[in-house]
């Protein structure tokens, strides 16, 4: 327990001296009166320990004492606790929300980090040491110097098939994922394909079923055998899990009903012309539907340099990084993970 250790941080304010509280919160000079990177050192150490444990057991959910943050729960409080625990003053930090650096919630999180942890911020994926993201993995290839912190709303892929975490913990312990397989099979019978949109269940290191957070299926292949570390952090549900570099991550699928990423037939980005990036639709005022790149930072680069590869910043070429990159075919249709029992569903 932290309180048995000598206090090293912060100032306490007696409950009746509101003036002192106001003074400490007031003014232009950032967050005086708060510890470096907002959280106290004991908390950050605990979060880092949980991250280390998560790295040691890829895909396994590690409980940690998620602190109340000055952001609402469900708005990135897990992500920001992980980010603040691993950021140092020399680091550069990038925050994206649904692919955009400019989203108001991303701006709010970025401001909390720059105010309290004194970090440089950037919108350029290749410049960032730590990237906190809500529901996207950037289009540009991440390197072994970078950590991607993903915000997680729902920690367990099995929640789809059973609401009880206690029951699901037993399933994970026994590697008993039969209920999920049945769910996917029923999907195929009913709809002819697995109809999970985002939050696609993945098997990590051949051992743990993992909820990759609501990233689109487009991004799931990027988790497999990546150079960078992925940290998944949930504030409300108080769990951290991780995919370390070069870990196998396989989406669950059947031999005859393979994993499919989102399809954008005959579409390209209205802004930069890309056909190998995740696009989202915009409904314009004159009812004209347009598609644009979701990763706004990379789209801006592509607008300057049309053919810019996703691995332009690396020494090597042809890096496999999800759909549209050289190993595309293999990663978009991974080998089946179990014997087929898809049957003649259609």
């Amino acid at each position: 327990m932290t309180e048995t250790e000598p206090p090293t941080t912060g100032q306490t304010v007696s409950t009746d001296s509101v003036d002192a509280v106001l003074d400490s919160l007031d003014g232009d000079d950032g967050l005086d009166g708060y510890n470096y990177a907002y959280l106290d050192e004991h908390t950050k150490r605990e979060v880092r320990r949980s991250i280390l444990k998560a790295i040691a057991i890829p895909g396994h959910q590690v409980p940690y004492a998620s602190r109340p943050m000055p952001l609402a729960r469900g708005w990135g409080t897990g992500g920001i606790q992980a980010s603040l625990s691993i950021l140092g003053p020399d680091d550069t930090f990038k925050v994206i929300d649904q692919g955009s650096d400019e989203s108001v919630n991303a701006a709010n999180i970025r401001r909390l980090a720059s105010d309290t942890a004194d970090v440089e911020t950037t919108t350029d994926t290749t410049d960032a040491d730590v990237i906190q993201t809500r529901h996207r993995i950037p289009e540009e290839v991440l390197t072994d110097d970078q950590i991607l912190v993903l915000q997680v709303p729902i920690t367990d892929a099995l929640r789809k098939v059973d609401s009880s975490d206690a029951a699901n913990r037993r399933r994970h312990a026994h590697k008993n994922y039969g209920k999920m397989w049945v769910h996917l099979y029923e999907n195929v019978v009913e709809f002819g394909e697995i109809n999970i949109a985002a939050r696609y269940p993945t098997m990590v290191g051949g051992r743990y079923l993992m909820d990759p957070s609501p990233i689109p299926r487009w991004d799931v292949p990027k988790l497999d055998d990546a150079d960078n570390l992925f940290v998944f952090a949930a504030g409300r549900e108080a769990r951290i899990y991780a995919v370390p570099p070069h870990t196998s991550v396989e989406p669950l699928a059947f031999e005859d009903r393979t994993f499919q990423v989102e399809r954008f037939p005959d579409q390209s980005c209205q802004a930069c012309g890309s056909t190998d990036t995740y696009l989202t639709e915009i409904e314009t005022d004159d009812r004209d539907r347009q598609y644009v790149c979701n990763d706004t930072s990379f789209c801006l680069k592509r607008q300057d340099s049309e053919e810019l590869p996703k691995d332009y910043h690396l020494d090597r070429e042809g890096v496999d990084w999800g759909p549209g990159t050289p190993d595309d075919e293999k990663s978009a249709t991974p080998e089946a993970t179990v014997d087929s029992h898809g049957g003649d569903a259609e």
Partner: protein
Amino acid sequence: MGYVAVKAGEEIIERAADLFEKQRLDGEDETLSVDQIEGQLDRLTAQAMSEAGLYAPRLAALAVKQAQGDTVEAAFLLRAYRSTLERWDETVTADPSEMFATRRVSPAYKDVPGGQILGPTKDYTQRLLDFNLETDHEDDEPDDPTADWEVDETEPEQLTNVMEVLREEGLVHEPEHEFDGEPADTTRESVTHPVDRDEVLQELARGETGAVTALGYSALRGYGQVHPTLAEVRVGKLPVKIEHPYTDEEVRVTDIELSESEAVVPVYAKREDPQFAFGYGLTFGRNERKAIAMTILDASIQLDSESEPAENPEFVLDVVDGMDSFGFIEHLKLPHYVTFQSILDRIRGIRHRAGVGSAAGVDDEAKNGDEAENTERDDSEQTPMEINNDD
């Protein structure tokens, strides 16, 4: 393109916050002081303190003011502040029977040792709007309705706990063994199931008042077996003591106002020696409703059944926290276009295979708004299907 495509994200945030602040300052009226909120709206501050798990009336009044009366938001401000404070010490375990009660009713007995004390309550009045309150602030000194009372200036007394009477008779089921060891602290260690009772009580004590009330009511309404008899409901001040760091003697450092409720439930654990099960509720400040509902939930959860929502500890603890539910419900306001694109891809693919719509949803026919609507209508008679998109 609204709230993502703006370049000046930070400026927009500031302006939105300024507009919110202006709502409070709109109009000609004087600004409410923190003193007024603390002194006159203590039900609000009590609720904020109880849900925050921080006893600090003055800070709670500030939080209520800043949140413009939204108690969950106020509790959220307090919790976020509390989590930055260093913990210096733990109090000596408080014994609720040391409470100086200003109000105590025991529905179980007509009379009890120490008597029934109604204390300050509006429970037994007619709920009619009092239009005099519209203008009473214009009086120099509002009438004190108790001004003419003749009261002994005696200290409030400590009362015999009604549960003690039942316990002495052996009617109450006692735990198999005394609790030894450190109680858990669910603010420092996340809850995993199965849970111990100390964790249940902590989570319920911080639960959102409305959620605790609704779930407690569900058990009474028929979704459960617990219909308790309240041994007593008390409101009063409980001394808080710590061990003096130098002398090791217990010293009283402050009093906190609490609402406490205890109940017995005719659910018999043992056939050969039937005894009451019991439930317990305790909240910061004056909030009898929450204390009683918590009592029902504590008793229900001890039945540890999955057949009724209120008896399933995992269900109750998962949904009862105001910060969690408020945050996640309101997060739906955040942009979701990445996940929605993924969902659109699925539904269009499935519709295409079913012979309605096109694979991409952007072919020439579907582009026309009217026809797109028509195809959707065709679909409406089919079985509803679920596309998993929960985030």
